[in-house]
């Protein structure tokens, strides 16, 4: 029997695979397709203090082996999430660890949401989203400066009841100072990568396809960038990493783990195939067996890989 369990701050997971934030709502829709208990955990859609309507449509466009999205953090706000969405998960999936993705316009927003959401009994960790490229305020700007990122992290860690994983942006010249600053500020771990900023233009109108003009690039197209950044952050920090970016198959998941990820989130692949996560989880034992492995700890060869 393959042992897929992993243990990270706040997260004792039966397997390392979880849907990525924004690609799985609050679980209700996918629960119509399969039993969410198959998942290691679930990262829910970004929560903000107030409800958000998000950007105008069109909000998505396809790119080669990727997609752009500019949803703009649409979510029903912390109140509804605390009173309806999280309780729904707690009732229907009492054993499913939830990671809450938190975003905001200001530091005060982030702090308020972290404080409140970390008290939900089924929220086991927070993913601090300082890297959303699709909102005018409170997105990327928190994630591109080490000082600002550290200040925000510190303030959120101070009020949170659960460990905080800071979600880093790939849209930076050097991710390392940001990771180090966030680590020093008390982050329990990292989550990476968020989307890269991209654009498509409609050849007919010669205007951007997305109403927001730019959007976040996700999917297999960005996988090599995710691997590179995970590897780079692993080379300077021993904190746990939730890796993501283009993961579709069990082989992809192990490639990110070989680069230094301790758990793996699956985003865009859910859209291509709603059963992407359970299929990937089911394929993990066989994929591990290819390397004569029967658990994930032994797959952890990060030390070999640290020469950055």
């Amino acid at each position, binding site marked *: 029997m393959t042992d897929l369990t992993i243990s990270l701050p706040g997260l004792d997971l039966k397997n390392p695979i979880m849907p990525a934030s924004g*690609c799985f709502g609050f679980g209700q829709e996918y629960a119509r397709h399969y039993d969410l208990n198959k998942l290691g955990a679930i990262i829910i859609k970004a929560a903000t203090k107030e409800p958000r309507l998000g950007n105008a449509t069109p*909000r998505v466009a*396809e790119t080669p*082996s990727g*997609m752009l999205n500019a949803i703009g953090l649409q979510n029903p706000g912390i109140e509804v999430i605390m009173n309806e969405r999280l309780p729904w998960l707690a009732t229907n999936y009492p054993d499913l660890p939830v990671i809450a993705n938190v975003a905001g316009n200001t530091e005060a927003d982030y702090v308020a949401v972290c404080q409140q959401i970390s008290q939900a009994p089924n929220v086991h960790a927070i993913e601090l989203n300082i890297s959303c490229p699709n909102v005018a305020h409170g997105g990327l700007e928190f994630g591109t400066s080490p000082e600002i990122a550290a200040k925000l992290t510190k303030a959120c860690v101070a009020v949170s009841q659960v460990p905080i994983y800071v979600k880093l942006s790939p849209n930076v010249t050097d991710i390392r100072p940001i990771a180090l600053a966030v680590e020093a500020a008390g982050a329990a771990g990292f989550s990476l990568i968020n989307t890269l900023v991209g654009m498509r233009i409609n050849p007919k109108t010669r205007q951007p396809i997305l109403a927001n003009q730019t959007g976040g690039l996700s999917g297999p197209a960005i996988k090599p960038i995710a691997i590179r950044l995970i590897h780079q952050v692993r080379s300077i920090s021993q904190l746990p990493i939730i890796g993501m970016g283009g993961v579709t198959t069990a082989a992809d998941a192990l490639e990110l783990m070989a680069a230094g990820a301790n758990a793996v989130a699956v985003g*865009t692949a*859910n*859209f*291509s195939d709603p059963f992407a996560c359970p299929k990937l989880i089911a394929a993990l034992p066989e994929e591990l067996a290819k390397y004569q492995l029967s658990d994930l700890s032994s797959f952890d060869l990060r030390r070999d890989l640290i020469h950055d």
Partner: protein
Amino acid sequence: MLTITKQTEIIPGIYELCLYGDITQQPIKPGQFVDIKIPDDAHLLRRPFGIAHVDRQNKTITLLYRVVGKGTAYLSRCPLKTELSVLGPLGNGYPSDHLMPGQNALIIGGGTGIPPLYELSRQLVAKNINVHHVFGFANQAAIFYEAPFRALGPVSYATNDGSYGYHGHVGLLLDAQFADAVSHYDAVYACGPKGLLMAVDSRFSKHPHAYISLEERMACGIGACYACVTKLRRNPDIQLKICDDGPVFKTNEVLI
């Protein structure tokens, strides 16, 4: 997985695609759609298509689609027996339970909005509803499925260039020839380009059973990603998802 059992270019650029498989075992409402994975790794997002015809006996559904971009071009080149990953039926579909035999329905469509209206019309006719169709096309050459629709009830055509039927868009044809439609028809159903939907939405804004079907770029297709939202007219702070709460809405319900 559904299998391609037939694929024909019925007029230039428009394909009729028959898919065989278990999807017909479940109930399918007219106006629902399927979301198809293009079988090429570079294409991640599924493509939504209305279901034009359900044949339970032969376990097939028929789609009618126009080649507009890379995905539909790829689909049109898929040979017979290709297995396609098809998600669906998705969405809500057109309500018609209130209709009684002998009552009248008006079906309004244009371009590639026509496909789901064919299955709708078939099912209404099977329930002995009298169906009148009003269809808009760019020109005569763009018209497809004329005979199948005529077999179900009268069809009034409008073409932008006047090459067939009424000269002008569907809104003008409705004004000219269907002035009493609001009271005459017990149900109104529309699907087509945005201009057509807006014309129907305003003209039948108070009709108790008038429905329009919207299109939007989608990612998940099942209501989880918020890609395809539309705002409620009475309260634009409330957003509905076209893939899941729609694609069919009552007239005057959402902002289009």
